[in-house]
């Protein structure tokens, strides 16, 4: 009994180590290709639950946010991602569950069973931070930023004390425009803007518009800092 128990502990440990090494390899690769830099313009990195909301143009977006976070925060920061994409095969599931600890949301609201907002608040209540893409889908248009979906509002209403940090990702869309088959190496930056929280009387559209403006402000802060 005892020996099988310690074997199990050992297997779990080795498994965790592999997960961590894969995670490190992913951040190293991201750095090698994109030379990514994090710029904390509107706030400093802090070890408490936060929601990082970013513009979305490629599959690599959350990897870059994840890469520039200090390692201690990175371990406890979970990307919110579409279950339809990340559960297709074992490799994607491995990365989503074991490496990035993603919160997988069923995007089809007709068939879904769980409540996505509850999934996210559960993670926040367990002291994790979240990476969220409020545009809901990858932005393939000429617009800088699509209108936000309501998920961010419902999450903010459910946990009004949690800081929402706008995160502007630059150049990832240029590295691999829609429909291209290979990426071109360009330098990317991840700019963290000034955090916001929802105020008591704010309605949905006003809040979403304010959050969107905060993200665009982070983008202009980035341009001005150059």
């Amino acid at each position, binding site marked *: 009994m005892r020996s099988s128990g310690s074997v199990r502990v050992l297997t779990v440990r080795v498994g965790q180590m592999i997960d961590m090494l894969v995670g490190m390899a992913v951040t190293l690769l991201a750095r090698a290709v994109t030379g990514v830099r994090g710029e904390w313009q509107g706030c400093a990195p802090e070890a408490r639950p936060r929601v990082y909301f970013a513009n979305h143009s490629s599959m690599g977006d959350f990897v870059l946010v994840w890469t520039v976070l200090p390692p201690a925060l990175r371990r406890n920061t979970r990307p919110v991602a579409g279950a339809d994409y990340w559960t297709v095969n074992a490799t994607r599931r491995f990365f989503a569950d074991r490496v990035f600890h993603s919160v997988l949301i069923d995007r089809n609201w007709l068939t879904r069973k769980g409540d996505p907002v509850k999934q996210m608040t559960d993670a926040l209540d367990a002291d994790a931070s979240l990476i969220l893409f409020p545009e809901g889908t990858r932005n393939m248009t000429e617009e800088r930023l699509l209108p936000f979906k309501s998920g961010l509002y419902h999450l903010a209403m459910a946990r009004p004390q949690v800081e929402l940090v706008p995160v502007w990702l630059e150049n990832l869309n240029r590295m691999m425009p829609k429909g291209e088959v290979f990426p*071109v190496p360009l330098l990317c930056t991840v700019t963290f803007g000034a955090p916001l929280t929802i105020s008591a009387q704010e309605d949905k559209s006003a809040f979403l518009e304010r959050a969107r403006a905060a993200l665009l402000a982070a983008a202009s802060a980035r341009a001005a800092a150059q």
Partner: protein
Amino acid sequence: MTVTEQTLALFGGIAVVLTAASLIGLLLQRRYAAEGPNAVIDNLNSRIKAWWVMVCVISIAFAFGKAGVIVLFAFASFTALREFMTLLPTRRGDHYALGAAFFVVLPLQYYLVWIEWYGLYSILIPVYAFLLLPIVAALRGDTTNFMRRVAEVQWALMICVFCISHVPALLTLPIPDYEGRQVLLIAFLVVVVQSSDVLQYVWGKLLGSRKIAPLLSPSKTVEGFVGGVASASLIGAALWWITPFAPWQAGIMALMINLMGFLGGLVMSAIKRDRGVKDWGHMIEGHGGMLDRLDSVVFAAPIFFHITRYWWTI
């Protein structure tokens, strides 16, 4: 002295200079610590620290010989090209041309230097890339700013790949009575250019008052330029023993390298100003990007290569 002894002597000298610089930096920091944070001294110290790292990286590359030097400069070209391309207003229609620049032209250029095919590596980018990349871009059918876009991509390749590759290409020069020592020509070029940059900075900080190019580079002064170029040229003359040149020839070569380096720095500043940035990147702490450190090498290397090739090779 053998080539190994000369290399060790040179790196030993550099280590002594850097140690002295580190001590001065430390003393300055101590002395002005009471007056609160000092951006100039902090920047000086991070520059000196970065110099230690750069010297270590270069000496490791030298230890691996030709392969090490080629890999080092291919890497420098890659990061420089990435910095350059990042600042260009490229469009989706440039994607194949950019991919070809990074994944075909750059490795091919360094491969040609490796196999010492002078006839091809000296025309690969000015002729083949110059003609083929616009064709690739044209086939994508996007005509917006077409002329400007293809010219910018060509410029990026010339600066970041063609010019930088002429540093390792010095290894391929067949100079009588200098076989197996060409790595020291690279050391000569790099030491002279970089000491010119450093000494221009030092002379400028100590005596500088009259701006030499206020629109391009407000920190450069006449005093810094004259003092830096003159003293770095003397350093070059004093390094004649690692080159195939006589002392006076080494001095003239160093002067030419320093003038090209200075003027190249102005050109690269003009590009940065136009693109609205202060530095090319953030790769090297205190210095900025790879191109901020290499801008003067870029302009000096091909001229140094060709003058040496014309007058000293068989």
